[in-house]
């Protein structure tokens, strides 16, 4: 029955295009209008406000986040500046302390060196004195030993030497 209708309708147009079968037009137009109204209602009641809200919300969030990021960046810059300042101050402080320490050490050193010099001077003088003493004693001893040795030698040669002559001779020799 339906096919017959279409055959008749299709037969009317030589090309047989179902698009030109006007018996189906009211049906198509009716359902199309229903469809469009339903889509329009779905869009305006639910979909479009929702998507619009989401997009607006996202835009707001992004703007806020960017502002927050900018603020944080400023803070970071300030923190870096403060850090650098503190660093510079600390360096200056350290340099000062080092200089003070150096000065103190130098002063101590000078004092110690002076003391050590003095001690060394004292010790040297003492040593010189001792050396002088030892030398004198040694000379005396040498004279004594030389006298005795000379007297013994003279005696050994069979001579007789009186002490005064030997002593004079030895001291004359020693003075040389």
């Amino acid at each position, binding site marked *: *029955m*339906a*096919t017959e*209708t*279409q*055959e008749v309708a*299709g037969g009317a147009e030589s*090309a*047989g*295009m*179902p*698009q*030109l*079968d006007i*018996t*189906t*037009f*009211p*049906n*198509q*137009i*009716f*359902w*199309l*209008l*229903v*469809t*469009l109204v*339903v*889509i*329009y209602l*779905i*869009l*305006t009641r*639910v*979909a*479009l406000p*929702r*998507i*619009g*809200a*989401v*997009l607006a*919300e*996202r835009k707001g*969030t992004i703007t806020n986040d960017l502002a927050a990021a900018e603020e944080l960046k400023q803070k970071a810059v300030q923190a870096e500046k403060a850090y650098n300042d503190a660093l510079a101050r600390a360096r200056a402080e350290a340099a000062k302390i080092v200089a003070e320490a150096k000065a103190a050490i130098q002063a101590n050193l000078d004092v110690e060196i002076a003391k050590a010099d003095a001690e060394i001077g004292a010790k040297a003088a003492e040593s010189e004195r001792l050396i002088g003493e030892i030398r004198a004693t040694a000379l005396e001893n040498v004279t004594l030993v030389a006298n005795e040795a000379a007297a013994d030698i003279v005696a050994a040669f069979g001579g007789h030497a009186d002490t005064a002559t030997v002593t004079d001779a030895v001291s004359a020799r020693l003075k040389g």
Partner: protein
Amino acid sequence: MATEAETGGFAIHPMDQFIVKPLFGDGPVQWYTVTNVTLWLALTVLAIAALLVLGTSRRAIVPSRSQSVAELLYGFVYNMVEEVTGHDGVKYFPYVMTLFLFILFANLLGLLPMSFTTTSHVAVTVTLALLVFVGVTVLGFIKNGVGFLGMFWVTSAPLALRPVLAVIEVISYFVRPVSHSIRLAGNLMAGHAVIKVFAGFASMAILSPVAIGAVTAIYGLELLVAVVQAYVFTILTCVYLRDAVGGAHH
């Protein structure tokens, strides 16, 4: 209904896919009959609802894939309306969006095998085009009064030419819905018919590799056509809307 050439005993019926028939039982197609048209229109509605309502149901700040697509479509059409019709046209955005989504989804659903392409019928596209045409004309007169007719009086042209131009402008104005609707229906019908013809050739063993390759290639082309035609219909709607909204002069 075998209208195309019959090759080697193979009957190819490229136009059979466009036949409107009742979904349940046989009988004449009354205006209220539930037909395959009704089915595919309903599927179009469901597809749109699935993407734009279910897809966005989480309202995520960081969107899911489906929400991303829905937002993309929203932004695309919104920007088009705003750019073409100007700021005053934005309040007609829901209507334009309705048209765009309907045509886009009807075109894409029509590319499913065994489906029925509602937008390949002139009854559908002419209705759509007339809705736009009548809507824009009525809106133009409401917004601009008789001044809307100034659109046909080209003041930038020499006075002697103006009557001639007015006639041309009036004719072109009334041709708008024709080109607007036939373009859409014609593109889709031709593409689908060609695919069907090649599919018919695929039943011949010698030709089948070529035919299947051709079907694949044309399918890709049709995918492009489906989207582009939806875009073209929508942007033309915006252009017509600008005449009504943005004053009579352009």
